[in-house]
């Protein structure tokens, strides 16, 4: 009898990973094929982000760091697209982009292909938005751009002179910017912006990082150094606020069901462990 009980607990405690992953994949795929339309709450951080952009006066200049890599694109890409759409919808906001990530310019091109600034918002490259390229050196690059942008770079990401673009008129250093936004897969990058721009020039700063990096950014937000820390996983919430549902909102059903599955897995594992322990099977 106890031998059979032990066997059940052993089986439950050692479910093969192929079974775990197989069930996980099924739970991923089903809501993708049959969307459930589950509700998505909007968190205070996302609302604060949205309010900050809404409060930008006309003519404001925003610096965006496309600092994420291809690995983070599925999570941060939708957030970057939603925020760009918000900035373009607001209008009369100059958006200057740079990349501290080596894949940043490629991913920016990807985002622009999704946003279609000229076709959907009447925005013009070089007048309303621009990308000044990937600059190696992480914090060195941040400090260099903040100190003297024109001494650091004189071309956009395609190698054309910055002087020909009206958007760059009067842009010299960090003091030329009203807001700094960073998307990054690396917590070090975001901390670098706090050290090199917020601390030195008091530039208002918001960042969107991978959900796993949010805990390391929370102390900065709590201390007022970062206005809002969001994760790319909250892209659906941003899309809801901005009014452009896209990839972010699609993930909500999947995330809800897969997290429910995680809770089931934890419950099964603990039931098996405690059952084995109390039936005398082990510690």
């Amino acid at each position, binding site marked *: 009898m106890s031998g059979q009980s032990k066997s059940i607990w052993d089986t439950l405690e050692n479910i093969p990973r192929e079974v775990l992953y197989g069930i996980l994949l099924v739970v991923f795929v089903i809501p993708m094929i049959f969307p459930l339309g589950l509700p998505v709450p909007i968190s205070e951080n996302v609302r604060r982000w949205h309010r900050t952009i809404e409060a930008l006066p006309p003519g404001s200049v925003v610096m965006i760091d496309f600092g994420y890599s291809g690995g983070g694109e599925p999570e941060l890409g939708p957030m970057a697209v939603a925020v760009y759409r918000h900035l373009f919808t607001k209008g009369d906001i100059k958006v200057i982009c740079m990349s501290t990530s080596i894949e940043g310019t490629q991913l920016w091109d990807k985002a622009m292909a999704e946003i279609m600034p000229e076709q959907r918002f009447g925005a013009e490259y070089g007048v309303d938005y621009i990308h000044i390229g990937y600059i190696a*050196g992480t914090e060195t690059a941040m400090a260099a751009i903040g100190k003297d942008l024109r001494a650091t770079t004189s071309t956009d990401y395609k190698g054309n002179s910055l002087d020909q673009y009206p958007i760059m008129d009067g842009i010299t250093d960090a003091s030329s910017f009203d807001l700094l936004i960073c998307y990054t897969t690396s917590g070090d990058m975001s901390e670098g912006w706090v050290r090199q721009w917020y601390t030195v020039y008091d530039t208002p700063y918001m960042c969107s990082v991978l959900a796993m990096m949010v805990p390391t950014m929370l102390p900065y937000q709590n201390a007022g150094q970062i206005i809002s820390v969001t994760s790319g996983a909250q892209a659906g919430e941003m899309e809801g606020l901005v009014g452009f549902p896209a990839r972010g909102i699609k993930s909500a059903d999947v995330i809800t069901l897969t997290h429910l599955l995680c809770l089931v897995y934890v419950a099964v594992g603990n039931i098996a462990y405690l059952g084995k322990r109390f039936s005398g099977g082990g510690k």
Partner: protein
Amino acid sequence: MSVTMKKTIPVVIVAVVAFIVMMDYFLVLPPINGAGKSWTSSTVTDLQNWGIILTAFSLGFGAVNLFYFHSKHISRRTPGQWMYSLWLLIVIVIFTGIGIFTGPNSYQYSWLYNASYFALSATVYSSLGFYMTSGLYRALRFKTVESGIFTIVGLVVLARNAPAFAVYFPVLKVWGSFVSDVLTTSAQRGIMIGGALGAISLGIRTMTGRETGFLGKMTEEERGGGTE
């Protein structure tokens, strides 16, 4: 070559450069040129631009190391390995060739990037999600007080992170906020303060030559000539 050339002068360079950068931030010096910049400001601007170029040079280390390591496998025809090594080097050559000759923002390079590197990078990052799943199945157990805290907080946050749960069970928002705004922020702040003190002491040790790890491999002469 003396220890002075190999060890002392590089350490002095570190100290001088770091000192100039910090001087520019902490001191307000009179301008020396028409642009209204002090000598530290001009020097730091130049140093930062130099740093960008030196970092650009260092981006080639990955490819050089891979060539060095994998060409050995190819020349030795290591069974079960050499074909993969050869393919890896071919990929480096293809990427480099197309990228340099057509430009990194050309249609051809972007096509290659999206067809291979982007897809691979995104998938490699995401594949860790499977290991996280088996990790939470096996690790989130009520075994000790610490693991119990880990499990309870993990369960609360997993439930909170599911968007619909937070709508149907509003109490999860309260618990989730407590975990993030109180428990996590405070612990992370403590870690950050400790880390900041460590970074400051490491910086001072490096500037004074007590920390020589950045010098790489050192000869007996250099080790003997160093200070503790």
